[in-house]
């Protein structure tokens, strides 16, 4: 196992993790501020990817596609919040789960109806394709590196938003005491719509960016959504820092687990058994990590609420 391969896989794990962070950040914000569990977040991811693919195909511009993804997801998010989500804030978790599950059904089948069952294609743009040479002589795809950078920039942006802006103050206040901010005269309705749309935009961005290296198809969002939930469980609900660290942990565990577990098992078993058991275990590695965190810290690594 060469060092080059290892570094490449670490970078892949980072990239995967950071894209997960975009999903998780939105989810944890929405839950932290509004107390809402939102299963439809995966649909917003998908909508972002589809908007990007459709616009990029029509205009030939990846950047326009990205803008479309952000706008499309944010608008879809705002609409959904106004029409459906608004009615769920006072309801119990079961109702929220079912209503947002219903939204998944509507969005997924709706998208399938408009675009058909075959995946759309979103290509990595020319100016971002090809390898880049990193210090040490390692070649790594420029696009994936860009994703890491974009993700970190978004993380920084979120940090600045929450700690330095007025909106951020409202968000932090809302996370602490929902009833209080209403009493303080803050327009809750508008705050919630903005937070939801922000989370949606993040999801859409993630979907569009990842859509270029995987396929853009109906149902692409839910596996990512569930992983984002794992991230939040590990990181702690309501904590953006937790989401970032949790996401990177999950990304690295998944990518490196797939490499190392079979190798580790080869010490004990013959190669073919080791590979098959190893890859099965690797598919579960993330969940084993989650279970381990739960045993030690039921509220997550940075969770304030139990």
């Amino acid at each position, binding site marked *: 196992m060469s060092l080059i391969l290892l570094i490449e896989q670490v970078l892949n794990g980072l990239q995967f993790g950071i894209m997960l962070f975009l999903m998780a950040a939105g989810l944890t914000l929405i839950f932290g501020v509004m107390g809402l569990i939102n299963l439809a977040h995966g649909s917003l991811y998908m909508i972002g990817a589809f908007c990007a693919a459709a616009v990029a195909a029509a205009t030939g511009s990846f950047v326009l596609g990205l803008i479309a993804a952000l706008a499309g997801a944010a608008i879809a998010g705002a609409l959904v919040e106004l029409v459906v989500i608004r009615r*769920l804030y006072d309801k119990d978790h*079961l109702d929220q789960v079912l209503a947002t599950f219903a939204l998944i059904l509507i969005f997924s089948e709706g998208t399938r109806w408009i675009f058909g069952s075959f995946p759309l294609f979103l290509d990595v743009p020319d100016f971002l394709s090809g390898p880049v040479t990193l210090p040490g002589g390692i070649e790594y795809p420029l696009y994936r590196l860009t994703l890491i950078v974009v993700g970190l920039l978004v993380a920084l942006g979120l940090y600045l938003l929450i700690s330095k802006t007025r909106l951020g103050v409202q968000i932090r206040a809302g996370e602490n005491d929902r009833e209080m901010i209403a009493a303080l005269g803050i327009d809750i309705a508008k705050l919630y719509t903005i937070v939801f749309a922000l989370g949606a935009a993040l999801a859409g961005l993630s979907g569009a960016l990842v859509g270029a290296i995987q396929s853009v198809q109906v149902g692409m969002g839910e596996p990512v959504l569930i992983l984002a939930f*794992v991230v939040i469980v590990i990181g702690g609900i309501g904590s953006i820092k937790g989401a970032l660290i949790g996401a990177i942990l999950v990304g690295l565990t998944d990518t490196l687990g797939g490499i190392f577990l079979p190798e580790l098992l080869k010490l004990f078993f013959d190669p073919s058994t080791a590979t098959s058991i190893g890859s099965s275990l690797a598919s579960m590695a993330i969940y084993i990590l989650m279970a381990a965190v739960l045993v030690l810290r039921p509220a997550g690594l940075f969770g304030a609420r139990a």
Partner: protein
Amino acid sequence: MIRETHVNALTLLALVAIPAWALYADEPFTITLMTRAAIFAIAAIGLNIALGIGGLVSLGHAVFFGIGGYAMGILAHHAQTYTALAEWPFLIEGTKSMPVIWLVAVCLSALAALIIGALSLRTTGVYFIMITLAFGQMFFFFAISWAEYGGEDGLSIYVRNGFPGLNTLAPIQFYGLCLALLVIVLLFAWKLSRSPFGLALNAARQAPMRVETVGLDPMRLKLIAFVISGVITGLAGALFADLNRFVSPTMFSWQLSGEIIIFIILGGVGRLFGPVIGALAFVALEHWLGGLSDYWHIYLGLLLLVVVLFGRGGLIGMLSGREAVHD
């Protein structure tokens, strides 16, 4: 308003009358549909014990459905290929006997529920929901990676398993078997809801602090409820695999977990016959709407939204109003 007990009786009647008519009119497909509904009902009754009484929103109950299914698939696969399941530490061969398969399915489900429950119940609320969902995914991906038993493509069992004294290949006989199990499970669920355990569990959902200060352990109550619930859903999984003579990772999917909850919500949460009516309604919708449009899930989604936002209590709630006081 129709009294809930009358609604229940009518449902039981339908469960007997419709297949009887189908037998007479030589419509075996209808019998198959009813079998599907009965099996879904069993799965949902299982979940309803944890969800309706215990308040545990388990979004990963398909785990048990899949475990039951794979228990059947693996045992039957080895039987039909005349290979041994394991040779060490002692010889385990496959089997095509339903009672044995059910026993294995139930034991494995119980074990899984114990572990998953013990871990998940360390958390509450949203965390619990997310964790159960995640465990479902874990099993899903594991099943896909398990090439020995079909992986993503699943496993076909060519001949339906056997039950002493019955010709299980005949749709009406297999249906009768499933119906019998459904009635047994319903009876058990009914008795449980009225039992001391049911009282304590129900209170643990509403006022855990109170339960603690009368000297009971709400966590342990919920764990046992979760195990019982997993066992029943696991049995349903084994039956489902037998109905389709096929088992695949989709039995672990989050979509299926969601559907099991939908059966309950359509019928009415916490109502004894809620899961049964919900399952019947779902299968009916699946068949009719599915026949009309390829995109019938949109209508299901809309219906679900309407039920959740505007009409809690599901179909039974609409027909019978508020739940009657346990007298």
